[in-house]
């Protein structure tokens, strides 16, 4: 049983690469009630491997990925706001992606799925909102890749989006982050079962697990990884003098990798990782300043002190650019040792800032 609803969009989506997708299906979930004025809708954009299940609800009591952030009486209060979260285009959690059957061939798209971008993901979200009868968004909130989507919302649908919260994100990945992404994709592609994306029973599990392990390392900080594991050995006191795993950090990463491959599709990982890599507002618009020209939303940028994947400086640069352009903008760095993943771990620290920001008058 799936927790989410699905909607088949009534119009084709033209992608940045030039291709057009017909019959796009979007998986989404809604929490709270849309008020009569229809002005209390908040779109939450998930990160790379997330899904529409941002929090628990009566109908879907399973814990969501941002359970402590969103819900009745929580930081993003669903007694007050109507929260929408949809699975991104290209993913494998109910929305259209490379795992979808292509109606024309009756086969899975696989690698014949067009390469998508963050802009494409957001145009699908926008179309979903329109078809749900939402005339404007009170706020768009997104962490990590979700932050890129939030930025895209503020730029491409500036009149539609009143407030924009960008958490631990950037206007483009750093070369260092690009490199990690590329290694992850290569691990998938080099898996013997990958078969150019046409895998069926035998999936490229090892490649995907390695991609996840690499990703996971980049989500942790030096301090959090040291505090949690150090050089401790897993269930033993001495080295094995064999080539398999000895250290706790190794077991942990194996566990994370193995858990991930059960719930995520390798092709989707490739496509979404590529979408992350391509996101570059300065390149697309000529400069960050030109990209931000159309923004009319009140902006909030939040960074994490120990995040080296999306370092604070990237958020500061975006906030300063907004200041130079006389936009309404706030920047806040959250002090946390947990690295990029902090927004999922120390939720209250972020929640307090987000709550204060979204509850105030414009």
């Amino acid at each position: 049983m799936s927790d989410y609803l699905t909607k088949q969009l009534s119009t084709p989506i033209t992608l940045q690469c030039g291709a057009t997708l017909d019959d796009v299906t979007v998986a989404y979930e809604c929490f709270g009630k849309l008020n009569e004025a229809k002005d209390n809708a908040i779109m939450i954009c998930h990160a790379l491997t997330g899904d529409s299940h941002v929090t628990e609800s009566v109908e879907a009591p399973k814990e969501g990925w941002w359970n402590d952030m969103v819900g009745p009486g929580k930081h993003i209060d669903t007694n007050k706001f109507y929260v929408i979260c949809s699975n991104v285009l290209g993913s494998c959690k109910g929305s259209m992606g490379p795992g979808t059957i292509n109606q024309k061939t009756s086969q899975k798209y696989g690698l014949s799925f067009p390469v998508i971008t963050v802009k494409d993901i957001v145009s699908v979200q926008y179309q979903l909102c329109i078809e749900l009868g939402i005339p404007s968004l009170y706020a768009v909130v997104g962490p990590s890749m979700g932050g890129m989507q939030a930025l895209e919302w503020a730029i491409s649908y500036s009149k539609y989006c009143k407030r924009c919260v960008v958490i631990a994100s950037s206007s483009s990945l750093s070369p260092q982050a690009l490199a990690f992404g590329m290694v992850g994709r290569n691990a998938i592609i080099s898996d013997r079962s990958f078969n150019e994306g046409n895998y069926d029973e035998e999936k490229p599990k090892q490649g995907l697990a390695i991609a996840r392990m690499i990703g996971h390392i980049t989500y942790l900080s030096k301090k959090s990884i040291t505090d949690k594991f150090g050089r401790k050995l897993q269930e033993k006191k001495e080295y094995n003098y064999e080539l398999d795993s000895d250290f706790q950090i190794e077991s942990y990463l194996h566990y994370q990798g193995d858990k991930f491959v059960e719930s995520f599709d390798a092709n989707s990982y490739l496509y979404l990782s590529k979408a992350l890599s391509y996101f570059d507002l300065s390149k697309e618009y000529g400069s960050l300043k030109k990209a931000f020209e159309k923004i009319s939303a009140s902006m909030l940028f939040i960074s994490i002190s120990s995040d080296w994947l999306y370092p604070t400086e990237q958020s500061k640069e975006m906030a300063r650019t907004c200041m130079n352009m006389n936009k309404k903008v706030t920047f806040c760095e959250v002090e946390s040792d947990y690295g990029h993943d902090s927004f999922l771990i120390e939720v209250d620290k972020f929640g307090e800032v987000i709550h204060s920001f979204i509850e105030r008058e414009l």
Partner: protein
Amino acid sequence: MSHIQNEDILSYISKKDQVLDLGCGEGDLLELLRDKKSIDGYGIEKDPGNVMNCIQKGLSVFHGDIQEGLSQFPDQSFDTVILSQTLQQVQNPLEVIHEMCRVGKVAIVTFPNFAHWKTRFQLLKGIIPKSDALPYEWYNTPNIRVVSIKSFKRICKKEKIRILHQKAFSSTKRLALPLLHNLCGQRALFVIKKE
């Protein structure tokens, strides 16, 4: 007292000005600017608790250190840059003053005057001065620089910074006679710009 002083700062700012408040604290001045002059100014503040207060008040605040931040702004990108009661806490005051004058068309600086007669008197007695304007003990003060009105004027002259206006305040009122500023002023306010 700080109330009188904020009103004085306000008197040098026109509606529609673009304002940057360095070390904006809980955002009292920015709030006044918004309510009285309809100005949505920016604040830079390093204390996370103060930043939260600013966010709650609906102000535009940038969490960070004033010394690190200013270099990123183009020349004359603000009408007014304010440094209120913070000069004595910065590592490189001279650099900050120059940067303020570069980034802002006009800069407003206020600080506790270390040459106030009570301060002098306490020093004569051999103890480290404390007052309304300097309320800390020597061992817990955030104030790492001591400056007087006279010294500030000297450095402005040396650095070719023009003083447009100068005011001084006792604990209760604005002081009229400029001659008495350095002796009787607990706090000083300067409006400056690059020559």
